[in-house]
């Protein structure tokens, strides 16, 4: 205990010394002061912390990150960007982050369908909204982001705006001798009756150890329909923590799909607050892991009002020494009658050394609700495999066919065709090869 506490302080000391924390951002001084207090009091999670007991990312950061500063801005991004096959294939509005810092010079014009502003250009009333959905006290890494961000963006989708093309939030990452920690920050306000699809991904330009610690806050107004797709496909030395929080209002719908492939260690915290009646929150995830990759999805859906629905499906295929963690909290408050909340986590383990820790956590105070949860962890269905082989399909293809079918249920939740196609390609590559 003493040892881990020491490490915990060491990590805090490390980050407090960073240039990012020292950068003066007067408009956000209250948020930063509060976040600092939270961190000084609670510290970073240690091995015994309940919320992080399977994912000791603090230790991983302490062991591998020496420089808490941000890397210097990547030069020549314009050129790099045109080479990205995925980005070329998707017709959308690109919003580019250069090592976590938004850069409008590289981004596309919004066609008047939405506005994007730097945090430093926000009105005082807008500044006040930042940090209200993802509160610093909720998670130490969320607090670290609030304390460390030096810029961020607010995307404002006005009332009634229907954005047909997806918004592409692309974060280019390249750690260098100046630093290896970045803290991207986004606030999205979706107005009444608006519709948008947001695709988020990081592109790593080298394989240096890097810590990406993002926070996204979503305010989804009445009858807004927002879809959010996130692709996590870095390299074996990425450490990532993503805190995403959403307030969902009356008749609104928020759908999140997270696909995790290559990484060192990832922790995704996703929480949906279903704040008014008849709204819907959907959380889907797919993780295909090999090597020593460790991916932890913690989700939290809070049914605070009646007649809301939440659907959750996370699926994983793991091999080698990889590890998957799933924790799904569902809260149904006493007045949230007629709630429908469904949760499912299914895993296939392809090797003896792969591990899954899964935990549903339902707390239901209302009595007229439909809630279900289930988790399974098993091997590939041998009987199905034999059936396919008995029809002349080779063992490797039969295996890939079955695994792909398993993963397909989550991929089908992606509605942007070129992005779905790209994700399918990545999954095929994973499942077809030596995976």
């Amino acid at each position, binding site marked *: 205990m003493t040892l881990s506490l020491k490490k915990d302080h060491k990590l805090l000391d490390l980050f407090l010394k960073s240039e990012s924390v020292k950068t003066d951002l007067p408009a956000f001084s209250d948020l930063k002061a509060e976040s600092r207090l939270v961190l000084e009091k609670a510290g970073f999670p240690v091995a015994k912390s309940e919320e992080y007991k399977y994912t000791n990312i603090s230790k991983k950061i302490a062991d591998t990150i020496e420089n808490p500063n941000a890397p210097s801005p990547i030069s020549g991004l314009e050129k790099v960007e045109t080479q990205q096959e995925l980005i070329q294939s998707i017709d959308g509005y690109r919003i580019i982050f250069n090592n976590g810092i938004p850069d409008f010079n590289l981004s596309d014009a919004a066609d008047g369908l939405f506005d994007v502003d730097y945090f430093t250009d926000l009105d005082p009333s807008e500044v006040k909204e930042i940090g209200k959905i993802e509160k610093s006290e909720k998670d130490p890494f969320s607090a670290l982001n609030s304390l460390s961000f030096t810029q961020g963006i607010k995307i404002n989708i006005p009332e009634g705006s229907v954005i047909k093309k997806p918004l592409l939030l692309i974060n280019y990452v390249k750690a260098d001798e100046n630093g290896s920690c970045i803290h991207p920050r986004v606030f999205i306000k979706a107005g009444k009756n608006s519709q948008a699809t947001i695709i988020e991904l990081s592109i790593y330009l080298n394989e240096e150890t890097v810590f990406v610690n993002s926070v996204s806050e979503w305010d989804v107004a009445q009858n807004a329909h927002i879809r959010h797709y996130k692709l996590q496909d870095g390299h074996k030395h990425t450490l990532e923590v993503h805190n995403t929080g959403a307030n969902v209002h009356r008749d609104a719908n928020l759908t999140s799909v997270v696909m995790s492939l290559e990484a060192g260690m990832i922790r995704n915290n996703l929480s949906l607050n279903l704040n008014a009646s008849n709204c819907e929150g959907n959380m889907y995830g797919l993780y295909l892991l090999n090597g020593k990759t460790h991916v932890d999805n913690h989700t939290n859906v809070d049914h605070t009002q009646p007649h809301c629905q939440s659907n959750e499906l996370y699926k994983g295929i793991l091999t080698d020494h990889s590890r998957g963690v799933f924790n799904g909290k569902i809260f149904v408050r006493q007045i949230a009658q007629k709630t429908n909340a469904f949760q499912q986590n299914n895993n296939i383990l392809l090797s003896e050394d792969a591990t899954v820790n899964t935990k549903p956590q339902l707390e239901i105070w209302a009595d007229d609700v439909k809630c279900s949860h289930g988790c399974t962890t098993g091997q590939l*269905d041998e*009987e*199905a495999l*034999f*059936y*396919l*082989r*008995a*029809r*002349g*399909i*080779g*063992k490797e*293809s*039969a295996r890939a*066919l*079955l695994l*792909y*079918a*398993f993963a*397909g*249920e989550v991929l089908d939740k992606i509605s942007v065709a070129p992005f779905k196609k790209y994700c399918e390609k990545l999954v095929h590559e994973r499942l077809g090869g030596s995976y």
Partner: protein
Amino acid sequence: MLSVKNLHASVEGTAILNGINLEIKPGEVHAIMGPNGSGKSTLASVLAGREEYEVTAGEVTFKGKDLLELSPEDRAREGVFLAFQYPVEIPGVSSTNFLRTAVNQVREYRGQEPLDAVKFLSLMKEKMKLVEIDQKLLSRALNEGFSGGEKKKNEIFQMAVLEPTLSILDETDSGLDIDALKVVAHGVNQLKSKDNATIVVTHYQRLLDYIVPDYVHVLFNGQIVKSGTKELALELEEKGYDWIKDEVSGTAV
């Protein structure tokens, strides 16, 4: 075509087949009958290459090749087809995609060009008529939510598409009502030719009214204890299996 000599097999250390001898020539239909637990399904599974069965002795040659050396997929590609007693439901794998993958991998093995989408579709259409299978079923995931009869029809449909030289029907009649039984049998009969052969594994004689066998073999304790023509099946239907059991134990004593 198929020659089984002194075949012994066990599962998890328990011997199930204790010396099977069987010769099958092109154009023939053989029925394998026998009481529950006699080893009928095991024989079918061993021929198809199910891995939980261990062959402890004997040999099987198929068209001159050592069948036991081949993987399940290579046996299928060589022309062995097992119609499953319990076809597996596979959610997420579309019937059409599955069958096209199978057909083209079999064709590749035989050095034939793969079928393009158009040719494959017309092949499907042609064979669908044969087993009176509903096109809607084939747009669904493989066997998922199919009724017992639909699953068995789908087996025969797959058989029709893959055109095997040796078909092994493992209790295809189980769970079928008389109409479905007729449809399935009709399909099998249509596919019969002088170049291919069929093994019908069944507990009851009823299927053999529709698929008429040239030979009937009775399996008991993992051995073929009696062989005859279709009249033997009728005799079994009338008298049950006990007299065979008595006969076997009688000779043993």
